[in-house]
């Protein structure tokens, strides 16, 4: 499947599960978009999990421009009251509209779990066709099964009361996926 086809399947499936999907050309553009999103939701605190890809977005600078409080401290109490968690996520899966997040670092995981909004930066070139492909690829790339890995598909949800679908129980109520084309083979 071509990248374009994978993208369109991913986008349709992810949106059907209430994820927000954006696509930008460069990491720099992703950094602008992150700041715009944070501003739009009037967030006061954001939590970053540092990674080389996140540095490439220059989001520390763009976020600073919005006046938001930025933290990267591993502190569950602080993470509990932060508004947005921002991470790089290395893969996505087209068939299920999921992002696929292998991560052993506790901060890297907690920023995706505790805040009400999770913004994920994902390379467009790493949209894989299926869950099965993702499980093979991750072992090839990491040399072993990472200690903790999650397929994340849309926000946290429940239908436990009267079968009424309600978004945002224990995890984020908003999942924003920003796909970055930069580094993609033409």
């Amino acid at each position, binding site marked *: 499947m071509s990248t374009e086809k994978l993208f369109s399947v991913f986008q349709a*499936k992810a949106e*059907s*599960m209430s994820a927000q999907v954006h696509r930008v050309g460069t990491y720099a553009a992703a950094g602008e978009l992150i700041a715009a999103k944070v501003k739009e939701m009037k967030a006061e605190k954001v939590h970053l999990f540092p990674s080389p890809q996140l540095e490439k977005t220059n989001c520390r600078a763009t976020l600073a421009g919005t006046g938001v409080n930025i933290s990267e401290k*591993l*502190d*569950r*109490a602080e993470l*509990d009251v932060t508004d947005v968690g921002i991470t790089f996520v290395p893969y996505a899966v087209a068939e*299920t*509209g*999921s992002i696929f997040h292998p991560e*052993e*670092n*506790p*901060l890297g*995981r*907690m920023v995706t*779990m*505790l805040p009400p909004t999770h913004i994920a930066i994902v390379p467009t070139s790493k949209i894989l066709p*299926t*869950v*099965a492909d993702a*499980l*093979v690829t991750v*072992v090839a790339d990491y040399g072993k*099964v*990472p*200690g*903790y*890995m*999650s*397929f*994340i*598909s*849309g*926000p*946290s*949800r*429940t*239908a*436990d*009361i*009267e*079968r*009424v679908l*309600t978004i*945002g*129980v*224990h*995890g*984020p109520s908003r999942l924003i996926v920003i796909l970055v084309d930069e580094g993609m083979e033409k």
Partner: protein
Amino acid sequence: MSNQEKNQDFKASIQKALQDQVMRGALSRFADAYPTARKNAYQGVDIEALRGEIACSKAKNGDDLDQLIKMFTENATKRGAKVYFAKTADDANRYIANLAVDRGVKRIVKSKSMASEEIHLNDHLKKAGMIVNETDLGEWIIQLAGQKPSHMVMPAIHLSKEQVAGYFSKEMKSDIPPDIPLMVQKARVELRTKFIEADMGISGANMAVAETGSIATVTNEGNARLTTTLPRIHVALVGIEKIIRNMQEAANIIKALPKSATGQLITSYVTFVTGVTPTEVDGQVQDKELHIVLMDNGRSDMLKDPEFKQAWQCIRCASCLNVCPAYQMVGGHVYGHIYAGGIGAILTFFFNDPEDAEKPQNLCLGCGRCTEVCPGKIPIPDLILKMRRRMAEKNGLKMIPKAIFSVVANRKLMHSLLRVASIGQFPLTGGKPYIRHLPFFFSELTKERSLPAVAPQPFRDFAKEHEKKNTGKKKRVNFYGGCLIDFCYPHIGKAVYEVLEHAGCEVYFPWEQACCGAPAKYMGDGETQIRLAKQNVAAMEEGNPDYIVSACPTCTVALLEDIVDVLKEEPQWHERAKKVAAKVRDFSDLVAELGVKTGKKSKPLARKKFTYHDSCHYRRHLHLSDVPRKLLTEVAGMDLIEMKDCDQCCGMAGSYLVKFPEISAPILQKKLDNITATGAEMVCVDCPGCVMQIAGGLDKKRSSVQVKHTAEILAESLRKG
């Protein structure tokens, strides 16, 4: 408790469930939405291939269990996990409670685990002094309510938002309004503190992958991720049936489980934990402790039992409950222990106590809808029958006195009693061909439906007379009447004769034929079933026929499959049974094959609107749904209007309406509503049992919709004007 008391208890729990309008509403809404949601979720997936792969790999995993347990243990241990094998519920409870005490644990958060419900883990931990909180919203509600889950995937489906608001108000000591989004937010805040403070997290697992030592959870709320990430100790309680070989098998289960469970493409989270990972304790990074408790608790007994090993193929999606007509009526709390539905009765039999499964297993209608959707292709109704037979062998037949079956099994006695009944019943029918009221304890049977009167002349008397003009020069059909056609609906039998003769056959009625054995089978009376099988084999061999035809799918299945199965221990009989079975054909199927033409310009029934009800055995055992539809539209020229849930059981299900008239009635009601909604003037079926149930229900409602067996329609269409 005496058996009679247990029966009363069980019946009372059913009554309570049937009167619970909140639960019935929720279950009915879900049941209505589920088939479409499931179908949409599986769009683009070769579902049959996927079911085949899952069933096959799960069966293989069962065969290789010892090796896989060893492999899982080694690989998880290599990654730093501590793996404990718990043979029994006690072992598991003790290990986890001791661990908590030893590590100075005070607060425990739990994500959803049916295995922990199965062994009442919370009670043990509370006794050991721990504060335990369920964090799955449904499970937490159940915990606050002090109840048991009523569905494997949706534990609180039986509660209304008002009830939930009541439990929340009490727990949070403030007035919480019954506003669902608000209550969900309250739960988030309330439980978030518990996550942050907990020293131990207990999760279940949907899979344990042997090749990598990983465990995986499939969840929507995100509580399992918090449970497995925040506390310094993680305990995973895993039933050994969750062990699979590799990630490819995991991918297949991920593909099926959410779609089958709730009609979701995938759940919000699918999480793999492989060995020890770090967490944060007081601001410092520290490795977590990971304990994996592999629990047997009756599972390997089930696996080693050749009659039940297929139940190992269950992936706990509960799709069998989602399509079960009986579950839809009564919900999960009547099933005796923790696991609900047909599969639940089987699991309870092995994991908990055979006694607890004894009453609930009777709730199975045997309609087979569950098997059609099961990702592990488990023939649940067949397993239920095996369980029932085992119980009957051990305890005797309880629900209906064995005396009744002795009558059914005794052809002469049964027939003479029915003849007496046909004379004695007129005060009941008021001269009409239905019994609207029955005296005494049978009254429940005629509350929602009229029962057919016993015909004044049984079909067999007509048949003997009719047979005299046979020439012996055409294809010979031996007709197996079955009790309903023989005694209540001789006109269906006559129609069968007309059509088969039109198709170039001569039809005979072997006099010694007896009850097909299905009622005995459904009661677990194996002995009677064998006796009847022999009698019918001998009877149907008469005259060395070309075909043996039945117009009742239950009888057809009995003659096709059961007589061969029950006689397998006796080689000579087995051979004879196989020869008989090879000639057995369903009426409509044979007519379609031989071909019939009306040869008339104007068809008497042309353009009449009809709807078709798929009888359970007809559709799911004989796979003949298309055949009568084709005959009715092409030969008779009628117009088909499909009804909603045309394949859902009418509630007749053999002796079910005798055992559970209170459940059978609302199931029938749904069927009648679906029939009426089509606006058709006629409903056609291929099963006299369904004719009896549906016609009785329509008569009681004074409906003008007619019920016809396909044979009747064809006979009328072929009759010379």
